[in-house]
């Protein structure tokens, strides 16, 4: 082996060790998507072989030497109909099958655990409900549905885990979501696949799929002290939200207890289910989402709270399932000034960098 150049040798070794032709299937959706993928590969191969066979066979049979004079043929409606209808049928099968998979990937189950992921140039910041933050990494338990709620702070990013076969763009100004259920313990690539500027190719990280026990251990070891909801509660207090949203009968703002997941009727008569995206909009563009029976007096917090702050607030409101919790917040904040100007300046103090 000594006569093989070391560079080439290195390369060959790498080839043998790193070479793969197919990504690992590490989520529940992966085998389903791969089934469709291989069906399409099969159909494509048959189609391609057919075309090549036809071309080669006709070239051999009817080349000029063997077949000096061409026979003019106008066409054949039957044949043409065949190769119109068969591909159409196959494509429609792929469409239906693909649509079913698409529904599955983008419809999280109700019991999914939620992780917020904020994309910004050029990193992924994940926030677990318990307040654990991580950058360019994501720890998830296996055999448990995990919903990722995504938002971008600046440009379009795209959250992609090839081993799980899931991908979703993080777009500025709106929550998007995707979910998966990891099935195999391991370490998988996390990519940003939407071009997002200079260090686009450095916006990569790892997804660690762990057993639930390990995950619990990891959660305990990396806690930052307060959960997202607790951060949200603090923010809720300092922004004086409870001046209006205090669940008293004469409150100026709607009661927020148990509001998450309920159906609201808005002033224009339309009804809407309260989800993360709605709550975010209601905080940033309140006048477009006024609940029936209330005046459009809520100030906008656009530009005053960072995306992470919004996530904290949303998480707080989401967990606000008893009046007691809100009362606690309210009592701690009744002494805070109620005037809007001061509330705003207090809010500004809380803006996270």
């Amino acid at each position, binding site marked *: 082996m000594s006569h093989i150049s070391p560079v080439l040798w290195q390369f060959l070794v790498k080839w043998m060790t790193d070479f793969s032709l197919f990504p690992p299937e590490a989520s529940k959706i992966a085998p389903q998507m791969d089934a469709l993928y291989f069906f399409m590969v099969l159909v494509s191969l048959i189609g391609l072989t057919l075309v090549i066979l036809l071309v080669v066979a006709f070239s051999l049979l009817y080349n000029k030497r063997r077949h000096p004079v061409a026979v003019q043929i106008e066409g054949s409606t039957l044949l043409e109909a065949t190769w119109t209808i068969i591909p159409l049928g196959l494509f429609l099968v792929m469409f239906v099958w693909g649509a079913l998979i698409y529904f599955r990937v983008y*419809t999280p189950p109700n019991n999914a655990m939620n992780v917020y992921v904020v994309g910004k140039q050029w990193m992924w910041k994940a926030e677990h409900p318990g307040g654990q933050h991580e950058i360019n990494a994501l720890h998830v338990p296996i055999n448990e549905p995990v919903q990722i709620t995504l938002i971008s702070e600046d440009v379009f990013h795209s959250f992609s885990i090839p081993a799980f076969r899931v991908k979703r763009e993080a777009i500025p100004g709106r929550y998007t979501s995707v979910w998966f259920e990891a099935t195999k313990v391991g370490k998988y690539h996390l990519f940003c696949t939407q071009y997002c500027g200079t260090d686009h190719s450095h916006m990569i990280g790892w997804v660690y799929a762990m057993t639930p026990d390990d995950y619990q251990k990891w959660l305990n070891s990396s806690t930052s002290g307060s959960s997202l909801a607790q951060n949200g509660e603090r923010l809720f207090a300092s922004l004086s939200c409870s001046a209006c949203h205090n669940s008293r009968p004469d409150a100026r703002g709607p009661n927020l207890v148990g509001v998450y997941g309920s159906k609201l009727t808005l002033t224009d008569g339309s009804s809407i289910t309260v989800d993360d995206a709605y709550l975010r909009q209601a905080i940033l563009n309140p006048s477009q989402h006024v609940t029936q029976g209330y005046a459009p007096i809520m100030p906008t917090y656009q530009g005053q709270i960072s995306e992470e702050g919004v996530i904290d607030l949303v998480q707080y409101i989401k967990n606000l399932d008893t009046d007691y919790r809100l009362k606690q917040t309210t009592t701690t904040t009744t002494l805070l000034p109620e005037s809007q100007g001061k509330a705003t300046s207090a809010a500004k103090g809380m803006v996270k960098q």
Partner: protein
Amino acid sequence: MSNHAETEHHIVSPKLYVVIFLSLLCLTGLTVAASYVEMYSFNVVVALGIAIVKAMLVVLFFMHVKYSSKLTKLTVFSGLFTFMVLIFMTLADYISRAWGRW
């Protein structure tokens, strides 16, 4: 120069132009007046309806489409069609986004 017949040049009489001109002015007045009447969501319908009628008058008579070849009519139609595709297919996304997840 090919097999299609060259279109006979039709000259529209000035009288017709005057009629169209006056009706355009009247319709302008009408649309302004209508905008002061509370008709809720029908305000848009009325305003756009009048605009479409006005545009049709201009296209058909001032632009002579009524007297033009089928090709010109087809051209106008295909332009409108693609315009509608752009607007309605895009709006379809925006409107159905509000329907929620499914």
